[in-house]
């Protein structure tokens, strides 16, 4: 299977601060990829690197086998819907569709028109007068009608109310089923991604914590609850994601490919949200320790 996105040691610095570092991932084609992490984790940076809006400070990235924004052909293959779904406030919806038609060789005018009609939007209306949800739908329509092989969406639903979120994601899903393209979308909320993604990347503090197909992630992560035990007494093939201890009890979230036979543990299935939170928690726990040591 071919890759839509390959990064090796990818990093990007703003001044002295690394917004993204040592990012090595390989996303196979045909997935809806969720990129999740807290605000400021580097999600937008990674997506901008993938769309060629930013140049890497370190490492390399190829998207659909080419250099991001390397030329008109590469740009035509990758669609990008930016954070807050910007549109030209002074132009009408019809103008936006015309813009797409003029600037994209593979523009699907019929699809764009039908989509706008299905959403019940008036093509003569100015984009500046649309609601947040309608504006997001317009930006998505422009992104979809470009007929990209990969569509990148940066926090597309962040500013939408729950109903508009559902409609937006539903529209996106219908389009992926119909036109067979890969999607990478970011969010700081797992619940947004849970329904639509089959591949997940967790990005915390400018590093990729884990990346993989959702099914596989769910099958390899477990929560262990039992009598208090130090992490170094766990088997070597069990990687601790997060750990919590009370006086008597320990709770671990671990990653392992092997089955768990230790009868002392109560093993529970994690939800996707728990899994992501465990990775974020691990990070904050590290930082807490570091702070305490400093004191």
């Amino acid at each position, binding site marked *: 299977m071919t890759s839509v996105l390959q990064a090796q040691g990818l990093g990007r610095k703003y001044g002295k601060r690394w917004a993204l570092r040592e990012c090595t991932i390989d996303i196979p084609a045909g997935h809806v990829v969720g990129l999740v992490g807290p605000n400021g984790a580097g999600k937008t940076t990674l997506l901008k690197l993938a*769309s060629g809006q930013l140049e890497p400070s370190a490492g390399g990235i190829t998207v659909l086998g080419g250099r991001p924004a390397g*030329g008109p052909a590469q740009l035509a293959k990758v*669609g990008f819907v930016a954070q807050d779904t910007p*549109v030209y406030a002074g132009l009408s919806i019809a103008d936006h569709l015309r813009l797409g038609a003029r600037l994209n060789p593979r523009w699907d005018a019929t699809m764009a028109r039908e989509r706008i009609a299905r959403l019940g939007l008036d093509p003569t209306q100015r984009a500046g007068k649309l609601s947040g949800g309608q504006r997001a739908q317009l930006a998505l329509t422009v992104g979809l009608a470009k007929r990209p092989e990969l569509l990148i969406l940066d926090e597309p639903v962040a500013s939408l109310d729950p109903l508009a979120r559902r409609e937006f994601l539903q529209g996106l899903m219908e389009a992926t089923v119909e036109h067979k393209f890969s999607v990478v979308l970011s969010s700081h909320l797992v619940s947004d991604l849970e329904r639509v993604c089959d591949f997940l990347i967790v990005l915390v503090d400018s590093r990729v914590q884990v990346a993989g197909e959702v099914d596989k992630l769910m099958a390899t992560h477990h929560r262990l609850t039992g009598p208090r035990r130090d992490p170094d007494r766990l088997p070597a093939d069990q990687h601790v994601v997060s750990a919590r201890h009370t006086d008597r009890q320990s709770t671990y979230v671990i990653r392992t490919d092997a089955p768990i036979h230790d009868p002392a543990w109560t093993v529970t299935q994690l939800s996707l949200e728990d899994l992501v939170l465990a990775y974020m928690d691990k990070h904050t726990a590290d930082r807490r320790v570091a702070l305490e040591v400093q004191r």
Partner: protein
Amino acid sequence: MIWLTWRQFRGSAAMMAALLVLLAVALALTGPGLAADYSAGIAACTQDNTCDRFYDQFLGGHDTEFMALTLVVLLLPALAGLFWGAPLITRELEAGTHLLVWNQSITRGRWLAVKLALTGLTAMAFAGLCGLMVTWWSDPLDKSAAEGLALMAPLVFGARGIAPMGYAAFAFVLGITVGMLVRRTLPAMALTLAVFAAIQLAMPLLVRPHLMSPVTATFELGRTNVDNLNIPQDGGALPRVSLNSAVPGHLGSWVLANNLLDPSGRLIPASGEGAAIKVSTTSGPCAPSAGPGEGCIVEINRLGYRQQATYQPLERFWPFQWMETGIYALFTLGLTLLSFRWIRRRLS
């Protein structure tokens, strides 16, 4: 891309065009009358040799329009830089729409090329047309103006001929470049204005006088170059002469240096003890009793006092226009290259 540029630009372009048409109509209606007045006046004044006075009266009668039009042509390029150049990129950055348009199947370089060419050429065309229209209209007035308002003088030179076109191109690209660096519309506009104004001042002060080496020559004193002859009324003291920034027979020239020479060819300082003219004020044409007038100047002239002027003659108007426009074209080219590099490498 051409369609998009036009779609975003047509509003302000149409407004600008409408204003320009209004100006053109006003100039077309009044221009021929002005030219006719001038020829009639010249025909009358050459008979009794009073053309100096006619020039003064003719220019004085139209100085408001003259100054207003000159100002319009001087301001137009700055406006192009401020309102078309500076916001070209900052507006996209502030609204985030650069992420929309630069992710269509078109490179940023191409986007900038079309925007820059279309808007820039329009700005140049407007400024050029406006400049040439005003040049045509004010031709009779330019022929009558001297000193600070002379055609070659800094104030007027930049508002005539083809130079406004060069200024507009430069101001526009300057606005774009500053916008890329500053990334916010209002600061970019302010900085564009400041830099453009500084360059527009530096050009006539530092560069333009040296485009061709100026002519230095001596002239007899007369009505054209003598501003004021000061004969002290209390007797005994010597008279003083102050000079106009004009040279006889070369109306419209730009006088860079202007001095009075005494009969032995030495410079007479503008003020102080040495500034006095050594001519008798107790008797003869320079005595207070002889009354003010030409007589004294003729006498001073006879004694050998001369004006020594360093100037750029009017005949160099078009060579200077081409050189100046060329210099601004080079600036424009340099900034254009810089902005293309910048948009590919730095901007996101």
